[in-house]
């Protein structure tokens, strides 16, 4: 008898409180998830950016030493190096017109350009990629990753991508560059570009 008189208001209170708990949870869950997903999203974007930046830096350091890998060609060797250092985020075989799966034309590829060393008579430092002697000592090599698409995981990170709302899976592009002056040619001579 005593137990029944005590348990009745307790259960009623419990029922009443459970509604409040659900409201509290629903109010808290969305902002909490937003913050957590924001941390993850921005963290991953920054990780991708710094990884790609480091990859082109290593590619440039590799380029100025005139080393080549099994491909025997300097440009392909540089791309292989960049791809390895990027943890294969970008493909070494992709080109502007032939992007890897999931990318559109003009995206997700490694670009290696050579510029003539600027001089007083020609201060512009013209692009000589594709010309004879493009990788001659003293020229400038520029290694770039063009438009690597970072896909947002959550929709509410879209504010950083330009608009207030971006759907999950929408992308923003990361492009990174590095450059240096090509060093002295090795004893074996300048390798085939």
């Amino acid at each position, binding site marked *: 008898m005593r137990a029944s008189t005590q348990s009745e208001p307790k259960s009623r209170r419990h029922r009443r409180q459970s509604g409040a708990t659900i409201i509290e949870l629903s109010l808290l869950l969305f902002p909490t998830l937003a913050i957590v997903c924001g941390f993850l999203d921005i963290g991953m974007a920054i990780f991708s950016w710094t990884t790609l930046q480091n990859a082109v830096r290593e590619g440039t350091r590799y380029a100025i030493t005139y080393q080549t890998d099994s491909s025997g060609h300097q440009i392909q060797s540089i791309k292989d190096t960049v791809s390895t250092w990027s943890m294969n985020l970008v493909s070494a075989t992709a080109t502007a017109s032939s992007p890897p799966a999931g990318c559109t034309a003009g995206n997700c590829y490694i670009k290696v350009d050579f510029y003539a060393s600027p001089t007083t008579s020609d201060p512009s*430092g*013209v692009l000589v990629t594709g010309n004879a002697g493009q990788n001659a000592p003293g020229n400038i090599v520029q290694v770039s990753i063009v438009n690597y698409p970072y896909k947002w995981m959550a929709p509410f990170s879209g504010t950083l991508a330009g608009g207030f709302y971006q759907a999950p899976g929408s992308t923003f592009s990361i492009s990174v560059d590095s450059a*240096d002056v090509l060093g002295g040619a090795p004893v074996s001579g300048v390798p085939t570009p």
Partner: protein
Amino acid sequence: MQRNPLEKRSSFRRRRHSQGGTEVVEFVIFFWLTFPGFLWMFVTGMNFVYMDKVNDVALAADLMVVKNQDMTLQGSQDIISRVATGLNLVTGSGPNGNSGGTGNGLLVLSTVQYIGTTTCTGCTNVGKYVFTKRIYVGNKSLQVNGSTVASLFGNPASALWDSTVSGTVSNNQTNTGAQTNATFAAMYSNTPIPDGQVVYVVESFFKPPFSFGGYAGSTNGVYVRALM
């Protein structure tokens, strides 16, 4: 004696009612403590990322200077501009920065020489570090935190510096206006630079990526230097 359940319920309601105000106070205190913390973390984190990129730019510029690239030429500055993709470094040509005073970054390139007795006997600047060259790349009137940025190692006197063509500092062995300030000398106090040798210094200043009205240090710029 057993309490009336109705009495118990009303006391519960009173407690809930009185706790309502406390929760608001707790929330306000919690919010005011955590929000600046989150903002500071965000600002500092983004500045670190920015610094990594600026570090690359400073290194690329210094490596080009070391390899005797003429950094007053437009083509050389264009290369640096491309390396600084996303940082809004507006370059031009010549030693005096871009002509419009635009952009969010400035690179100060200095060549510093130690004048010993072998280099010059009886000169005014013997035993001193002097500027032999100074080139500005980017926005020379860049302001960070409300003041125009300046090299931490001082500036050569304007009368000695060729600000239009080469950026060279004349009379650097005999004129005290070519000397660096004490900060530079202090850096090399333990292992001084050998007589006549030079150090290529690149100092880079960039505006911060985000500015929340100066909140949580968000107007502090990024400064990175490279010495070779």
